């Protein structure tokens, strides 16, 4: 499923809501939690993570794991607030769509 670009930001913030993760893990989370529906080209995720970081919604740092240096991302306070706001907007929107579709068999 190819999602509109704007939704990717919300999904990435949501994937990091449980705690810091590196890009590969974020991609796995999106794929697993969506039952395989959000199977993005993995190369599209990193520019989005960097963009969110440049907007101050994420911060990143390098750590060592299994002998490799790895960049890990986590939500900032601003990112947590943005996630709450965006999630609320999305639920409102989805609820409205559900209401309209309710009468369709």
């Amino acid at each position: 499923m190819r999602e509109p670009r704007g939704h990717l930001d919300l999904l990435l913030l949501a994937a990091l809501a449980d705690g810091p993760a590196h890009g590969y893990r974020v991609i796995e989370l999106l794929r697993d939690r969506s039952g395989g529906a959000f199977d993005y080209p993995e190369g599209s995720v990193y520019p989005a993570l960097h963009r969110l970081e440049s907007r101050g919604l994420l911060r990143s740092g390098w750590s060592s794991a299994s002998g490799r240096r790895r960049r890990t991302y986590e939500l900032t306070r601003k990112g947590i607030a943005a996630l709450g706001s965006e999630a609320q907007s999305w639920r409102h929107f989805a609820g409205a769509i559900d209401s309209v579709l309710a009468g369709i068999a």
Partner: protein
Amino acid sequence: VSSLDDYLEQLRRALPAGSRPDVLAEVEDHLRESSAVHGEEEALARFGPCGAAPHERWPQGPFPAGVASKQDAIMVLFLVAGTLAVAGAAAAARRRVRLALALLAGGQASLVLYAITYARNGGHRAPSSSSARTPREGPA
């Protein structure tokens, strides 16, 4: 040269000037982890094309366009700092103390600017040349 090395070289060429120099290190880490699980060919397919039509534009790094790597920035800043320091010393030798202090302060400011950009960039070097060998073909 493996296809993963080729891919990284193509990505390096496709990145816009001024991109964060640690992008390639991050992508390389991802691809090596993915390759261990799926195999190299599948890992590259999953990552997607890196050339002419990226799904998202890679954001610019902390360096202005034309200063495409941290190494370049280091060189430029040290050049500026060194020039100012030498000029300051020369001015001091001629007893122009105020000018010397101003120039030395400029040199120090350059070094502070370097430290800030280095810290913002995660203190990470650009990927090693082991993944930047001559590609068999140009960017996709």
